[in-house]
């Protein structure tokens, strides 16, 4: 195992070392000690390695991740796993706003709660939040799946496109053009797989599905009040 202590080493040095790992690396396991809320920690990785961060992180941890499995043993600041491409990012605590923003692939698991705008503009990522999510989550979400085991705040899925939203608890309000949709067999199967990957034994049938009404896809003056 490779161990890097951010109390004595520089962030640039750590990121450069992680980014230098290739597909065939034999340095598969990394541990980061004393993250001390550092920003931009473990960003731009592109190798099948496991990175365990022993504490809380600042902004944009695991940004643009490809392939790597990154675990945060603490809480994560804003923009966790933003624009993630693939791999897995898991935070054991809570995540601040914009978690998984614009993510294109991979799996983001938040064991605690996520703040506002979770999954904003998501483009293919799967996000599973074991707790609650804040307001304006999945705003303009384009693709991918957002699963929430707890409650969702105001304006869930405002102006969303083709992303699928699954919520087990209460939804305070839905955003423009977001509606509840029928939970069909294929959705239950998808949800079951996502829950399993995220380490949850929740029952898929307890969830409700939300998605786009597709009424705002092309401008119509009679929908002007929705904008």
């Amino acid at each position, binding site marked *: 195992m490779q161990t890097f202590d951010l109390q004595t080493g520089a*962030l*640039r040095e750590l*990121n*450069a070392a992680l*980014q230098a790992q290739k597909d065939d690396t034999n340095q598969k396991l990394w541990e980061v000690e004393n993250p001390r809320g550092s*920003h*931009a920690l473990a*960003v*731009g990785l*592109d190798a099948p390695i496991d990175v365990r961060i022993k504490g809380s992180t*600042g*902004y*944009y941890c695991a*940004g*643009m991740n*490809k392939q790597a499995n990154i675990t945060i043993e603490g809480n994560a600041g*804003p*923009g966790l796993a*933003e*624009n993630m*491409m693939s791999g897995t990012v898991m935070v054991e605590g809570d995540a601040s706003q*914009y978690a998984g*923003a*614009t993510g*294109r692939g991979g799996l983001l698991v938040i064991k605690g709660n996520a703040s506002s*705008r979770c999954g*904003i*503009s998501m*483009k*293919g990522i799967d996000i599973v939040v074991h707790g609650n999510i804040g307001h304006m989550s999945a*705003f*303009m979400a*384009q*693709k991918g799946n957002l699963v929430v085991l707890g409650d969702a705040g105001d304006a869930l899925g405002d102006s969303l*496109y*083709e992303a699928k939203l699954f919520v087990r608890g209460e939804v305070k309000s839905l955003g423009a053009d977001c509606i509840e949709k029928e939970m069909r067999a294929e959705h239950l199967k998808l949800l079951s797989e996502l829950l399993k990957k995220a380490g949850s034994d929740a029952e898929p049938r307890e969830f409700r599905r939300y998605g786009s009404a597709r009424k705002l*896809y*092309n*401008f119509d*003056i*009679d929908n002007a009040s929705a904008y």
Partner: protein
Amino acid sequence: MTDENETNIPKTVPRQSWTFSPEVNAEIRRAAATGIYDIRGGGAKRHLPHFDDLLFLGASMSRYPLEGYRETCGTEVLLGTRHAKNPIKLDIPITIAGMSFGSLSGPAKEALGRGATDAGTSTTTGDGGMTEEERGHSKQLVYQYLPSRYGMNPDDLRRADAIEVVVGQGAKPGGGGMLLGQKINERVANMRDLPEGIDQRSACRHPDWTGPDDLEIKIMELREITGWRVPIYIKVGGARPYYDTALAVKAGADVVVLDGMQGGTAATQDIFIEHVGQPTLACIRPAVQALQDLGMHRKVQLVVSGGIRTGADVAKALALGADAVSIGTAALIALGDNDPKWEAEYQKLGSTAGAYDDWHEGKDPAGISTQDPELMKRLDPIAAGRRLSNYLKVLTLECQTLARACGHNHVNNLEPEDLCALTVEAAAMAQVPLAGTSWIPGK
């Protein structure tokens, strides 16, 4: 008392209202009939104070000029010297502004890359990701980081020679991108992760930061991902240029790109284009002042865009303190946009050459702002690239001509003292004396 012969009584001439002009009335009728605001491409069309309102003084007794063709007048520019390991080195002080694939056809993006590379300058992606046509033909490519993040990925980020974080643009400060359904074909939809044929309205704010404090951290992330190798630009629309420039410097920009209201867009509301923002001329001096107040003028480079057409415009922007300029609309015209040879087709579309601005409809007869495969074929990217290269070289020669006439051996040595203004407004905005006086309004 009346004329005995009533047929000789002079008639009142029908008078059109200045307020309710034929154009205004036509727009009212169009809005009433369709229920949608007018959307178009391009920049502000109204008359605005501009570089034409400035003149160079030229050398005489107090300064001596340089000999044209014999004495060197440098044009090279380094952009991104503040933090980046590899600053952008341009042979000429003119770059190609960000324009998206989607808004423009693949051949048009290729032509921009070819022309810019041949002339020794950079080109810029847009709100649609990086295409192979553009990357492959651009020696130096600036990758835009936009609120929509369409097509954004770390591989393209690392293939870029610079990154431009777009906060706003001159045609619509405070507004997001727009691409209507006609142009969202399969390739464009895939690149943007959107369903085909929808009206795409990009966000006007970035999804994962708000304000300059957050942006500072966002820029740090981008630098960490790219190994602090490439410059990071911040592009702002010409709204509050002093504060926007100062905050961009605070956020860590290597380069500030400042786009005035004549700067074009692929598509947005006409009301936005004509009524939001400030003319380019009014934006430059406050931005330069902000850089000077922070001790960062020439350390953080300033690129100005919005209505640059001639070498005189280039020279005037540089004299006011810019390090380089950027062109979009003029580059498209050089490629062949709005060429009178397509007049019959412009007429069929209800427009005329020079006025055609329905770029969002994707029916461009010149094959530039379209995704129609048949129309696209009309643009030969090699020939169009050559035209752009020629035009860029002419702009540079013109700029050098004026710099030499003012006694400068490098275009970046042009200074406000080389200029006077023809109007009080231009004198106030450019902060140079009104012609024939030593008066600068407000000074």
